[in-house]
């Protein structure tokens, strides 16, 4: 590479050098070149001054009323987001609980009604109407509880 090509290439890097945006190899190349090239050294200095001037530009200030308003709005939004997440978790927990209840309660009812041996009997499968009715009852009770809980939370939120 001849000296002229090197000079042209370094010139393209000078603005980035002033912005501290070169990798270490490019940085070393620029540093080595400007030691022996006064034109590039001068241009680099000027780019650096432009960078310094950009850093010194006055910062527009956000109005205190805007900041206060924003904090209030963001806090409300954050509280609502937390409540939404809590309710989603509660709903998931409720669904799991309902299924566990359905799965466990019918055999337990059988156990209490007819003793241990009934659990081994094939008659359990023949009583599917009872099982379906019991399942529906569980889901209805769960839905009623969910509606009650949701209204309770809505009222709480209104009062808050």
């Amino acid at each position, binding site marked *: 590479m001849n000296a002229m090509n090197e000079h042209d290439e370094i010139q*393209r890097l000078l*603005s980035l050098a002033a912005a501290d945006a070169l990798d270490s190899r490019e940085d070393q190349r620029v540093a080595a070149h400007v030691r022996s090239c006064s034109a590039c050294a001068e241009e680099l200095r000027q780019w650096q001054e432009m960078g310094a001037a950009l850093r*010194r530009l006055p*910062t527009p200030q956000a109005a205190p009323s805007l900041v206060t308003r924003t904090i209030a709005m963001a806090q409300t939004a954050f509280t609502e987001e937390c409540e939404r997440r809590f309710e989603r978790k509660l709903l998931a927990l409720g669904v799991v609980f309902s299924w566990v209840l359905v799965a466990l309660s019918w055999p337990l009812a059988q156990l209490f009604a007819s003793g241990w041996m009934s659990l081994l009997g094939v008659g359990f499968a023949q009583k599917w109407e009872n099982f379906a009715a019991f399942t529906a009852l569980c889901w209805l009770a769960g839905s009623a509880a969910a509606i009650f809980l949701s209204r309770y939370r809505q009222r709480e939120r209104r009062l808050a």
Partner: protein
Amino acid sequence: MIGEAAISLEVPLGLEAEVARLRRGDLDALAELVARYQHRLYRYLLRMVHQPAEAEDLFQQTWLRVAGQILRYDPRRNFDAWLFTLARNLAIDHLRRLRPESLDAHEAGEYEKTPAALRDGAPPAIDALIARERTYLLAAALDDLSVLYREVLSLRFEEEMKLKEIAQVLDAPLSTIKSRLRRGLENLRQSLEARDPGGPWQ
């Protein structure tokens, strides 16, 4: 000791703690974060959209988005970059809706417009510009740049972000960021010369 100093420069004191407190549901931490970033974020949005009323609206929307997404935020990510990404996405959507022409970069074209004096490497006397405190001129020239260059210059010089952080905010490769930075600076110098043809940097 050196390591500690480096860490304290990387993460502003208390920022991580504020983010962690907010993620645990502490509303005061949200107020502290808004206060911490109030001027920086507002300045960035103002640089993007120019109009104070629009910047204020975007400022509020950004923090509403923070409130909605902070629980999904990965604390290993850089918070600055995450926050400015949210702000940038809102600003770009806003510009796309209201002033789509402002997003036309014509990157290659703008570089071609670089005056011969710059391409030939003739050094304009920027020191004279600085000496005469042409701050207003510089701010006006910055505002006149395409939004793609304006935001890179603002993030690098005003927000003091590293190139990697800027790449995260813009969701662009490092090479693109460097290219925009260089072209932005060259266009800025060109604009300064055009604003004051008889100026000392000719």
